[in-house]
């Protein structure tokens, strides 16, 4: 998976989750940049991404992602690509 593929998946998941098709994610996007992406939606987002991509984020990473870019990097590392 390329960065762009992963970013597209994350965008689709978050759009569906928040029922907001206007969301655009970039590597630099932080949670606070997206309306309604609160801590409850964040847990759901992480779980949905894990299920979509068949990965499992370690506890330490789940608690410390500052930007979408860090999530993309974590997925790449977990997928070994």
């Amino acid at each position, binding site marked *: 998976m390329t960065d762009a593929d992963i970013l597209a998946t994350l965008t689709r998941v978050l759009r569906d989750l928040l029922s907001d098709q206007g969301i655009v994610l970039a590597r630099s996007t932080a949670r606070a940049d997206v309306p309604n992406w609160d801590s409850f939606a964040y847990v759901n987002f992480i779980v949905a991404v894990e299920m979509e991509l068949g990965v499992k984020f370690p506890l330490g990473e*789940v608690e410390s992602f500052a930007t979408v870019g860090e999530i993309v990097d974590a997925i790449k590392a977990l997928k070994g690509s």
Partner: protein
Amino acid sequence: MHAIGAGAFAFVTVKWLPPPIEFRARLEAANASADALERYDALAVLADHRLSFLETLQLDTALARVGQPSKSRFETIRLATLSSATIDHLQPPIRVAGLRRRLLIETYTGGLGLQRQELFEATSNLHAFGANAILLSFVAADFISALALGGGRAEADGVIANAVASASALWSKAKGTGAIVIQQSLLDTFPPVFGGFDALASNAPAHLVARLNLALADAAAQAGVLWLDVARASARDGLELWHDPVRWYQGKLEIAPQAAGVYGDLVARLIAAARGKSRKCLVLDLDNTLWGGVIGDDGIEGIELGQGSGVGEAHLALQRYAKTMKERGIVLAVCSKNDATIAEATFRDHPEMLLKREDIAVFTANWQDKATNLRAIAEKLNLGLDSLVFVDDNPAERAHIRQALPEVAVPELPRDPAHYVSCIADAGYFEAVSFTDEDRDRATHYAANINRETLQHQAGDMTTFLKQLEMSVVYGAARPVDISRVTQLINKTNQFNTTTVRRTEDEIKAFAADPANAVLHFRLVDRFGDNGIVSVMVAVPAEGKADALELVNWVMSCRVFGRELEYEALNILVERARARGITTIYADHIKTKKNVVLAGLFERLGFVRDDTTTAPETTRWRLAIDGYAPRSTQIHAKEQA
């Protein structure tokens, strides 16, 4: 409930539902409809699929956006959950699973670990919410964390006793609100301490959790509290699929989000069962379902059934499951594309057949389409299509029935017959909240009904038939032993049900305890056997009227329609009312889609219209006791000893 996924990520799912087709397009179509009723219906159809975690959340959002529960045809339930763990993520799957059962579940979640405060403080948000179902859950550590491993057996006993006492206090407070109360079993998430010896060591966590669950379940049974058995479900699936340490440490989520879909279904099926919405009849296909192979082609020696082949044993296991369901009161039927003579001969002549012809209440083997046959089966049994579960190995037949008769539940059987039973059993179609004598004897009742039908054909006219039935009705006020059947009948009856107001056991107990009310039950016995308690009347002092009763519930089992029991029951009620100086009986008739059988009932019984109600779909009726002449019937009335 079956793990799906490989390697890093496995999860449990509602495997008995078919996967959705074009979910996104169908969700958009549902959202686009301007009519709230249509939107609810379309979303309910979507809910009947094996949705992913994300799809479940999307559906829940769409449901919230309709936001006009009064415009749906679904019953609304207000469910409050009080828990020691984070449960927000469980609410969308509960609501979606409710929708699957045509229930609109509005949810409230109490503050984390504040079960006692929420229940005991009169001004709490819980009380403001006005729950009609309250679900309590704890984490096992709530009870056992303070117990030292080196403490003695007596200390362990004390922990159990304290847990039961504190749970009981919460239950009784919760029941005091009139809600259905549900206790969730405890998950054993503790690592082994000694190993196998944990089971033998009185203070080892595994030992304590097992004892706590048994003790709490016993107390719950005594208290009339329902039991949500997540411990059993997670033991079947594997604890790792239900409890994810990452989510626990991250935010105190005891039930993992990846198990939430199944969790929601467990909650919704229990509430649905308490509301009388569980299924009642198991309809079975024959070829490649009850046995391996095609009887018309392979012949009686050629089909695979019973000992000797693994596949044969798997099909036999399905027969055993069906037989067990019959013993607990589920009606069995057969619906097969087959030659009737050959199909019936298999039941009679194959030595390995566990199901016998007489186990099957309605046997349909012909070449008609199955939707027509299923309709006929429902009609013959006097059940709604939403009481049926249809089991067929053929995906095309399943798709056809889902399309033609969406009310019928059609489990998505896996290809391998080894998994047939767990697929049907895990779906929880027949979830029960009680097991009464009536359930135990239901199969006998159906057999007796066949004898009655034969007599009716022989007798020719109705009066002769009724006379030859030699009927008597045993009636009386509901005693403690009758409460669970009386409640069950009120909640399960949809046809002869004058108000369709459902009741909890506690409400019925309260009605029965007040001598100003009359809670009467009627047991009909005839020459072919005891039909059990088949009718119930609940009458209370009419509001704002002296010397008047209002019949707030009157139900009668469809099994005894056409026996004049409604006349005899009214004779009995009037006689009792008269003895108490009552002058008038009022009754509301609230029309539903299912109680059309009541059209004209109160007129036939001698009531007159009373125009004092404006409630929707409701007509009010009045009977003057003074002018009432008992109607003569073929039923001999006897008061219970």
